């Protein structure tokens, strides 16, 4: 577990240093994710190796980690109420449009390239 956590933190650390050095508008953890992916692809660790178990551990309770940021909404209840209609409509419609166009675009090209569906 400790080895797993170290590898995740090191990937994030290098990612954070890269985005700051190159002045990128990308989060350090996203660059760290790319690095960790490369490490996994090169090393091909077995599923019970510490390298993999650390990641499994933090992913198991991923929803928990978003709770503190989400609670921040309580500081903005006034603003959200005052502009409720434009905010609700803008948020829901663009979310729906983004969701469906992403799925539609991907499905279309999957079909055009003759790939079979991956179903449950």
């Amino acid at each position, binding site marked *: 577990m400790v080895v797993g956590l170290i590898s995740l933190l090191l990937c994030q650390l290098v990612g954070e240093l890269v985005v700051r050095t190159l002045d990128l508008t990308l989060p350090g953890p996203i660059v760290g994710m790319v690095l960790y992916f490369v490490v996994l692809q090169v090393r091909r660790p077995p599923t019970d190796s510490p390298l993999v178990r650390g990641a499994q551990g933090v992913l198991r309770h991923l929803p928990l980690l978003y709770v503190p940021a*989400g609670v921040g909404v309580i500081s903005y209840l006034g603003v959200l109420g005052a502009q409720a209609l434009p905010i609700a409509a803008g948020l829901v419609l663009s979310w729906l449009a983004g969701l469906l166009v992403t799925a539609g675009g991907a499905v279309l090209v999957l079909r055009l390239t003759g790939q079979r569906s991956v179903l449950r």
Partner: protein
Amino acid sequence: MTFQLDAAWTWMVGSPLFGVTLTLVAYQLARLLWERTGRHALLNPVLLAIVLAGGTLLLLGVDYGTYMEGGQYIAFLLGPATVALALPLHLESRLVRRAALPVVVGIVAGCVTSIVVAFTVTEWLSGDSELALSMAPKSATTPVSIALAESLGGIASLTAVFTILAGILGAVAGPAVLSLFRVRDLRARGLAVGAASHGIGTSRALEESSVEGAFSGLAMGLNALATAIALPLLLLLLT
């Protein structure tokens, strides 16, 4: 002996112990309720835990900054957890590689659509271009959406709130909406949830299936990149 209730209370809410404990208890209660109701989508654990913890703070009159004395320790783990999303991607890497073109087309089309609709609808209904600018990057994961709002003239803290709400929307309704529109391919489903609802959507996608989780994590990363490139260009056309 005298009771120092006020002093004890002030110490408690300002202590990291309070924020951490409240977050964990709210999350555990939310999960229990979710399990008891047969995993009902509307009782999504993230949404419920936020309502429980946020409601408790409002009831107790504790402000968000005080809560974050503890909350920050849990939020810190988001960094390594985001890195960890490479694991599902690695496990499904053959599937991902074969779907490279559909993934890129889906992400670019969805990203542009999401920004244009967010900006135009919000501006049209509010007449407030600052509010519309704060809405425009909300599909990208929080650090990116906040940075974009800051550099392009939106209100960063509002963008953070919109981003989280878009995430919750995806965790609660994403899979159901995709089923309603008969999107069955697991790759397309995961991709759409990750593109529209970043990490919070991805946490739900991982519960649906490993393929959806992998494509959702991938979509979150690619959409952050696409939004950072497309938003400044689209704003030239929209404003």
